[in-house]
């Protein structure tokens, strides 16, 4: 039948196209120097300190300020909405392609131990699918994706909203011959929130009732994996609690219990836990974008505070 032949022809043609597209996207995404994961083999730089966490770290720690105080060479290896599985895999891939840092500062707070706020962003690791550790972690966190990724190009098509953008950016960078990332130290200042919304109005709209945090077992498992990875590679881990806007504290119902848990966890693993939750800047809404994330001005102030703290307590 003529139509069936045409349908088969379309399927065959498209299957061949998928194979080509997979190769093309891999090349383009690798050339997107602002894609943190894709850019890891190209970093080739020895950082002495690495900061990891979700948006609280990505937007809240400015390495330039800390480095100016301590003479470190530090890097924010964080992206927003990352849970500990995401952080673990990013650290693993970083260490796969780069020499280990001496120090790792990891953000740990009631919000990040709860499964509610952050998630595993599978699309970030599409380019590394095939690596056994990446596959294992993806299977544990997004099994349907891994099943589909066996089909050519599906590793990119499944979350095409992100991968197509990354590939287009790669194409742009090839055209302009851009080879260095916009943010060399990984720090991304918080975007100007719409209408410069401050933490107070955020709280009014979102914190209708108190929040009871739950410790997610999966988060704890990957936290353990991160600590183990640090031990294997002789990296000194330090757990930190980034600042929280004081106005939101009354809504964090059981935060003391969770912080107590974090303290005992840190003590049992012989890891320092630095709690910056209530440092002086946390009293002012104007330094915050949202109750748990600093704006650019707040990030500079906190980075200075953290830099001084590191100076007093750590000698690399």
């Amino acid at each position: 039948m003529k139509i069936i032949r045409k349908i088969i022809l379309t399927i065959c043609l498209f299957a061949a196209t998928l194979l080509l597209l997979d190769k093309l996207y891999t090349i383009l995404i690798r050339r997107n120097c602002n894609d943190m994961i894709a850019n890891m083999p190209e970093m080739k730089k020895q950082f002495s300190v690495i900061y990891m966490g979700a948006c609280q770290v990505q937007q809240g720690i400015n390495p330039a300020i800390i480095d100016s105080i301590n003479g470190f060479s530090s890097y924010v290896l964080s992206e927003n909405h990352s849970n500990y599985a995401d952080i673990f895999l990013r650290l693993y891939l970083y260490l796969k392609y780069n020499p280990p840092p001496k120090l790792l500062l990891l953000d740990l707070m009631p919000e990040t131990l709860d499964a509610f706020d952050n998630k595993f962003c599978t699309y970030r690791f599409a380019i590394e699918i095939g690596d056994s550790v990446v596959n294992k972690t993806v299977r544990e966190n997004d099994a349907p994706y891994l099943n589909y990724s066996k089909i050519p190009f599906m590793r990119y098509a499944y979350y095409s909203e992100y991968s197509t953008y990354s590939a287009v950016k790669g194409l742009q960078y090839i055209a302009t011959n851009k080879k260095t990332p916009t943010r060399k130290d990984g720090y991304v200042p918080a975007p100007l929130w719409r209408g410069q919304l401050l933490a107070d109005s955020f709280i009014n709209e979102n914190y209708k009732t108190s929040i009871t945090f739950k410790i997610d077992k999966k988060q704890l498992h990957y936290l353990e994996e991160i600590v183990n990875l640090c031990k294997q590679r002789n990296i000194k881990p330090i757990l930190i609690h980034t600042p929280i806007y004081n106005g939101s504290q009354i809504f964090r119902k059981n935060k003391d219990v969770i912080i107590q848990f974090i303290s005992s966890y840190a003590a049992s693993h012989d890891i320092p836990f630095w709690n910056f939750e209530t440092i002086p800047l946390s009293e002012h809404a104007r330094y915050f974008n949202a109750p748990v994330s600093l704006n650019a001005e707040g990030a500079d102030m906190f980075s200075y505070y953290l830099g001084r703290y590191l100076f007093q307590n750590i000698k690399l």
Partner: protein
Amino acid sequence: MNFNSASYLLFLFTAAVLNRLLPKYNKIFILLCSLFFLGLLSWHVIAVALFLTWLNFLFCSRLLLSSSRHSIEYPLFITFNVLVLLFSNYIIDVQWLNLHTSIRWMTIGTSKWVGIFGISYYQLQNIANLIDARKKILQKPAAIDFFLHNLFFARFVVGPITPFRLWGKNFISVSKPINQIDIAIGTQRIMIGFLKKVVLADRIGLSTNIIFNDLYSYSGIEYLAGGLLFTLQLYFDFSGLCDIAVGSARLFGIELKENFNLPLRADSIAEFWRRWHITLMNFLNQYVFTPLAYRFRRMRKQGIVIAIWIVFAISAVWHGISYTFFIWAFLHAFYLTVETFSKQQRMNWKKKIRYKKVYHILCVAVTLCAVCFSNIFFAIPTDKVFHYILKSFSSITQFTPGSFRLFLGGVARNADDHGIFTFIITIILTLVFILVEKKIYIFINLGKFSVVLMFLILLLIFTFGIIGDSGSFLYTRF
């Protein structure tokens, strides 16, 4: 099993191939496939669907045999079906009322599958069959035909609503070997449906979800833009779903009625309703509006207007338990009332006006704006509706040309490059599709198959489709 899933495609094409290999037992095979499909939703669905179908088969047979027009059976049968419809349509929403624990326990346990009968258009069809049986315009159905019509998987959840009497041709064609035209139309309609859902509706949904779930962050103009985007999303989502249903049926030699006919090009609200959700409007028109308009005929235009308001009140009740649906229905009834009373005036204008195309474009734009405004009430959460109204009108003047990037960023989720890239690509794809949509449908419905067209659609689905995060279809909410 969602229509937009790979497992559905696998099920569909396996069933279509097997159906072709079993030419003598097509009806039974398709019925078994339908029961299998319903079973994947829940085994309760099979049991209830078979029971209700059997009951309605008996009701129809009884009404066809009955010679009395004033028998008590007819109102009883209708009432039974209406009660099933209301019960199944509202049971999900009962949880929202925070009723007594025992009732909530029941709804949590049953809402997953009972709701299907409320959204499936299934009961509307049964009601139509009973009315037809009473009017004796329905021929006595064979049991297998009645069951096949009622339970056919491709239309069970989404329609289109087609009374039994309009399905006659399908019972013959389903037994014939499937031809090339059916295969060409079927596969291409399914692909177009996927394109509309995962490339257009779901991409637009990224913006609308953010705007309507985050009301405090946005200004009035963004809400209005959100209304337009939601209308597009609703159209692509629902018509994509119908395309998949029509295409799936065609692979079994069954021709389903069309539910959409380029509604975004309507130049009046009345015309819009002749093009949007056609089978529901046909049902309401035939079984509610026409009898009412006839009853109120002495009141002339006022009678028609009363019938319109009743039809839209029923439509609101059918959509769900929220008062936002009544606001939506009120707006449409109001629009149609204005159109009814201004019909002569508008015709006079049309005759006088020199640039007829410009007039037509203006009418299309005004109609689209009116529809978009009403659809906002479909989109926003019930408890925030008045917040929305107050804020949208108080802040509409705050928009300045200088804030364009922020505005774009708002609609595009984030003012960053990724958000804007995503939004611009979505808008380009949407506009291009709207421009070529008519030609594509004409081409496909002629039974032609284009390798280039299919290749392009597949390429768009794989490079721009929201495959991993694709949600369920919007209309299954109502």
